[in-house]
């Protein structure tokens, strides 16, 4: 009795299945449909082979061959001994009558099953989920509409990997048309779906499900899986300012109101009609469309070798080919009238302008130097 209870408890304590496991199970279920036609074909072959073996006195190879050419409607002739006798011909007649139907039906059903959309789609989905398991530092885009399509285009341009989660089967066509490498056609608010999209290893997420309630459901589920706002960024869309605020309270790093965003961007052009080029340039940089030039914010950490130095002495322009255009003070003031005499202080944020490649290099070099200085201090 105790053993029975133990086994029962063990069987009951099942963990939540992974999406890939569910798909694999569905794949096996789809393969199950092959059983009946295969069994029918198998029976016809066995009956035919055994019958001819009895007629020929145990000649297996020829009996098998004779069965195949009979039920396969090839009919090369009576190749096995005993098949040209009276009993042989009666047997061949019955085998042909039953076997030909079985053979053609089974083969048709098997071939159709293999080309059925379900099996192929499932196989592709399993393969894709396995590839997603290898991703790291990627983004998850929930919902695929025109906005997500533009976003996907930009991410692709910047070579940032992303996984699209969309449950609308109609979107599948567009996902394939737009050459989206990774996508999951499931409900994005499910825990197992987000885990399969690699949320534990992802860098961030964009929630764009065209419905505030669904957006909130996804944000909350994602935030429960990745609680830190510093490690995992969630960006969402909201229909009103109030909802946007709620979303930010519930876990989104930033919630955008699309109409408002569009109006703000348009008004920027109206306000700067005289300087269209420069406002367009800043606009494109801010929105990540300008890939030749970029802006980077670099915080001067305690222990950085930059602390106390004048900009003239640092001379990032010559050494790293980037320009400091402004300095933001810890209290939030932006100093745009900097000169060579300006001194960098602890906690300042340097606004650096330059080519993306040089900016990345500058960030790396400055961070490494800070680390070196801190290490040297520790040793002392």
């Amino acid at each position: 009795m105790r053993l029975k209870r133990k086994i029962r408890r063990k069987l009951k304590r099942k963990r939540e299945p992974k999406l890939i496991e569910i798909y694999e199970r569905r794949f096996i279920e789809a393969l199950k449909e092959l059983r009946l036609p295969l069994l029918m074909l198998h029976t016809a072959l066995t009956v035919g082979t055994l019958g001819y073996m009895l007629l020929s006195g145990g000649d297996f190879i020829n009996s098998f061959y004779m069965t195949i050419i009979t039920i396969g409607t090839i009919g090369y002739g009576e190749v096995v001994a005993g098949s040209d006798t009276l009993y042989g011909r009666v047997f061949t007649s019955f085998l042909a009558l039953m076997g030909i139907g079985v053979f053609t039906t089974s083969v048709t059903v098997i071939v159709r099953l293999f080309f059925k959309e379900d099996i192929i789609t499932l196989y592709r989905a399993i393969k894709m989920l396995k590839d997603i398991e290898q991703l790291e530092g990627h983004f998850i885009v929930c919902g695929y509409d025109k906005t997500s399509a533009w976003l996907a285009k930009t991410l692709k341009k910047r070579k940032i990997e992303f996984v699209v989660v969309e449950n609308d089967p109609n979107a599948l066509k567009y996902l394939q048309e737009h050459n989206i490498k990774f996508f999951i056609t499931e409900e994005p608010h499910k825990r197992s779906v987000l885990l399969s999209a690699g949320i534990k290893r992802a860098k961030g997420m964009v929630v764009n499900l065209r419905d505030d309630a669904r957006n909130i459901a996804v944000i909350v589920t994602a935030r429960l899986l990745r609680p830190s706002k510093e490690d995992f960024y969630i960006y969402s869309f909201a229909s009103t300012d109030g909802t946007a605020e709620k979303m930010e309270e519930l876990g989104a790093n930033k919630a955008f109101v699309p109409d408002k965003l569009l109006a703000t961007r348009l008004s920027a052009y109206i306000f700067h009609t005289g300087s269209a080029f420069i406002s367009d340039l800043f606009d494109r940089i801010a929105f990540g469309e300008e890939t030749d030039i970029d802006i980077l914010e670099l915080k001067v950490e305690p222990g950085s070798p930059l602390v106390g130095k004048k900009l003239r002495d640092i001379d990032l322009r010559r050494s790293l080919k980037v320009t400091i255009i402004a300095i933001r003070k810890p209290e939030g003031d932006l100093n745009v009238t900097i000169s060579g005499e300006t001194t960098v202080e602890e906690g300042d944020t340097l606004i650096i302008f330059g080519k993306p490649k040089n900016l990345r290099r500058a960030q790396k070099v400055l961070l490494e130097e800070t680390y070196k200085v801190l290490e040297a201090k520790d040793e002392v």
Partner: protein
Amino acid sequence: MKYKKIITDFFILMALTTNISFIVSPNPYELVITVATNLAATILKVGEGRVLSTEMLASSLVADLHLIPALFVFFMGDQVEAVGLAQGALAANIISVIISIIETVLSAFTEEEE
């Protein structure tokens, strides 16, 4: 009583018994019947079972991969080798029956739960 389970279990047992009978008295008919029942058991095991389905199918495939070569070896004249291969298949078939019993017991527990 489940109709499907009767057929599957019938073929699993039949695969074992015909396998033994071929080893005891090797003759071409026994061998063909053994191969046929084993293949039928394999086809029926696709997707069958809930707890140990993978193990069930794998053990059956092992038996098939012993018996099909045995068939060709036997009709090429090497009886001793064919019997050897059939003995290998016997081991796989015994494991198959054991797994089937375990599967039945375990599914009885889960059914009670539901």
